[in-house]
């Protein structure tokens, strides 16, 4: 760890209204696993985009191996030995693995040779992958393997990984770490971006912490407690949600043996899903992205209809009812995708309040909209959930992700649901907002509502759920009490390592 591979000096990048990076400096050593730690919106993404040539810094400089480094585009960065695995994979669903990999290379060999090299690399690093499979049909973990192999084929000196474990089961995370340790032992440096502290402590040699675009400190993760790192990251002491002991009421909602075909070519079919949630219960549903989360929410919200008896609310058949009629009965939902699914981007917050609030809040009589009442409801949500916005007439897309999420969750919670289904309620939300949202869900359950919380954040689920189940390829595991559940057990419920194998170190 003596030699410096890449040195960042005073990197600054401003966007209108926000300084994404402000005088950020740090060094990455040769063969070092360097963590970049920070909350959502701390400026991690902008920083790595500058290193990867996607964004040009306003000021500051970078030095790679002792020579000035200013990549004009990703191609230049790749030529200099920088590779990146994106958080949202830049893959092409309709193309096969080899074609996807060829697109990420400067001078790809003919397809047949490339396929052979893909097989060779994937075996060396324990990442089995068939070069001729269509990417759209791969699981999230397999898709990540495509990205990693694409990077490894370029023999990178620095591998940037943006939140790589958010799509993996705990077992898959272990395998990934083996691969990364093997790379490190071969002298490759890794810039590892995450906000998961335990992971960083397990893997990284050094950590740089960003807050609001500034470098606020560095540490050696092994020697620093997770709590200390968290406080450096957030800037204040954290408040854990309060959870009072709850008694579960009668069954509120249940699904029995439900199967639904995949909505699109690359969607997931639900297979024989059985689920029960009681009044006052929070049922946590974990699982790696793309294993049927969206589809399960659609079936519960009424966007996808099924046979009447397949979904029961207090014993009444509601499977055939559309979202409007389900809302009338008290079944509300908040989908994962905030812009475009839970809210309409170009519409005002008032209009977005009407989107789901029209029925239960009585905002429309005989089809005619009462805009005054709608505005008041929107205002109520904004105040109750501390949504930062100039007013109710601002477009949804003008809000930050966290604020919009608070609005979306608040809109449903304030309608006093009997059953609330949320998917990824705190995804991309800063720690304070996430804590507030979790607290709201707990309060709702305490009042006797049934809450189904679908999430990929296992820590979150363990924190708030009474019972836990996992989705794996469209199947839902049997629920277990969340208390005392070990990480290994959770991992196995999520499908284990999905056929991966440990690297042959």
């Amino acid at each position, binding site marked *: 760890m003596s030699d410096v591979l890449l040195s960042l000096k005073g990197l600054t990048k401003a966007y209108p209204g926000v300084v994404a990076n402000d005088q950020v400096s740090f060094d990455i050593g040769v063969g070092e696993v360097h963590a970049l730690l920070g909350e959502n919106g701390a400026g991690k993404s902008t920083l790595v985009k500058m290193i990867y040539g996607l964004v040009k810094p306003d000021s500051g400089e970078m030095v790679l191996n002792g020579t000035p480094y200013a990549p004009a585009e990703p191609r230049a960065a790749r030529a200099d030995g920088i590779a990146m695995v994106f958080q949202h994979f830049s893959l*092409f669903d309709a193309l096969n693995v080899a074609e996807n990999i060829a697109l990420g290379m400067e001078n790809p060999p003919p397809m047949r040779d490339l396929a052979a090299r893909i097989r060779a690399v994937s075996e060396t690093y324990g990442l089995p992958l068939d070069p001729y499979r269509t990417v759209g049909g791969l699981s999230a973990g397999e898709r990540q393997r495509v990205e990693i192999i694409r990077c490894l084929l370029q023999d990178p000196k620095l591998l940037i990984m943006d939140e790589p474990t958010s799509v993996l089961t705990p077992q898959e995370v272990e395998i990934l770490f083996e691969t990364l340790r093997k790379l490190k032992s071969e002298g490759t440096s890794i810039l590892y971006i995450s906000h998961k502290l335990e992971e960083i402590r397990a893997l990284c040699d050094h950590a740089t912490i960003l807050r609001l675009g500034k470098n606020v400190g560095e540490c050696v993760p092994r020697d620093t407690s997770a709590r200390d790192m968290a406080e450096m990251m957030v800037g204040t002491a954290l408040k854990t949600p309060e959870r009072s002991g709850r008694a579960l009421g009668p069954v509120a909602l249940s699904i029995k043996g439900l199967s639904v075909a995949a909505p699109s070519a690359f969607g997931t079919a639900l297979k024989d899903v059985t689920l029960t949630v009681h009044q006052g219960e929070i049922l946590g549903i974990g699982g790696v992205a793309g294993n049927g989360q969206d589809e399960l929410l659609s079936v519960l919200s009424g966007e996808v209809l099924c046979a009447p008896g397949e979904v029961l609310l207090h014993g009444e058949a509601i499977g055939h009812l559309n979202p409007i009629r389900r809302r009338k009965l008290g079944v509300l939902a908040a989908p994962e995708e905030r812009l475009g699914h839970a809210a309409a981007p170009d519409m005002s917050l008032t209009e977005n309040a009407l989107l789901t609030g029209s029925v239960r809040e009585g905002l429309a009589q005989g089809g005619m909209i009462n805009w005054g009442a709608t505005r008041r409801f929107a205002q109520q949500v904004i105040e109750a959930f501390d949504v930062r916005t100039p007013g109710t007439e601002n477009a949804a897309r003008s809000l930050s992700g966290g604020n919009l999420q608070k609005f979306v969750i608040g809109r449903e919670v304030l309608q006093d649901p009997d059953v609330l289904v949320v998917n990824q309620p705190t995804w991309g939300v800063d720690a304070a907002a996430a804590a507030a949202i979790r607290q709201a869900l707990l309060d709702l359950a305490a009042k006797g509502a049934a809450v189904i919380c679908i999430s990929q954040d296992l820590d979150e689920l363990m924190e708030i759920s009474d019972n836990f189940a996992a989705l794996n390829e469209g199947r839902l595991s049997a629920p277990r009490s969340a208390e005392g559940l070990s990480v290994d057990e959770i991992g196995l419920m999520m499908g284990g390592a999905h056929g991966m194998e440990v690297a042959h170190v």
Partner: protein
Amino acid sequence: MDLSAINPVQLIAFLMVAATPVLLAAIGELVVEKSGVLNLGVEGMMITGAIAGFAATVESGSPAVGFVAAAFAGALLSCLFVVLTQFALANQVASGLALTLFGLGLSALMGQTYVGVKPPATGKVDIPVLSDLPVVGPILFNHDLMVYFGIALVAATWAVLKYTRAGLILRAVGENHDAAHALGYKVVRIRILAILFGGACAGLGGAYISLIRVPQWTEGMTAGVGWIALALVVFASWKPWRALLGAYLFGGVTVVQLNLQAAGVAIPVEYLAMSPYLITIVVLVILSADKSSAPAALGRIFHASR
């Protein structure tokens, strides 16, 4: 009614001629759509190509000059679409319609002095010996150059899309422009090239109608062929060879209905004349169940944000 006057060999030979305009336009649009752009302005680019090619041929006396001018005019008109959709980020459906409405007006304006003029004939490629063969001679070896050019274009498009890196990049851009951008590909530049190619092909198709198929200039003479070309791309599931098949099917329907009209079948002329459009609808219905092969980014607006 005299059906015996219909000569099957001539019918097939004429089918290939009737199919060529729609084939040229469709193959161009196929490339455009593969890059993720939906250009509904095919009809407008075709009719502009038709008059530009016609005018250039009449003025220069050379059909070759005419076809080059038509391709150029089609590409030039598609530049307007480029400005709207790639720079001003306008809705592609509306922009395509604008292109068609504008092209129809522009061609009428350009064509005022050419109504009733007869263009110089376009020569046929006369392949000695082969063209004298019975049956296959007239069907395969006695056409003008553009018929062969159309088929060659299908083959070339197929090969480029399937086997070359340029084709792979084009497909990638049409599949997921954000990912392509993240990998450093110039999404807008690639799409502009595809749109210009589509414009040139549509222009050629239009000129084929005014110079060979009809041959004369009348206002609105493309009569929906551009729209049929768009339908053909869907029919073909974005596969070049299937576009050829579809074009021949359409050509066949056109030729048969014209022959039936000439033979004086007891079906009113108007109902025969509407048959190509009705059959296009029927084919669209049968084939639209399968949309899985459509480029995923088709019609979506790309803006490289942070």
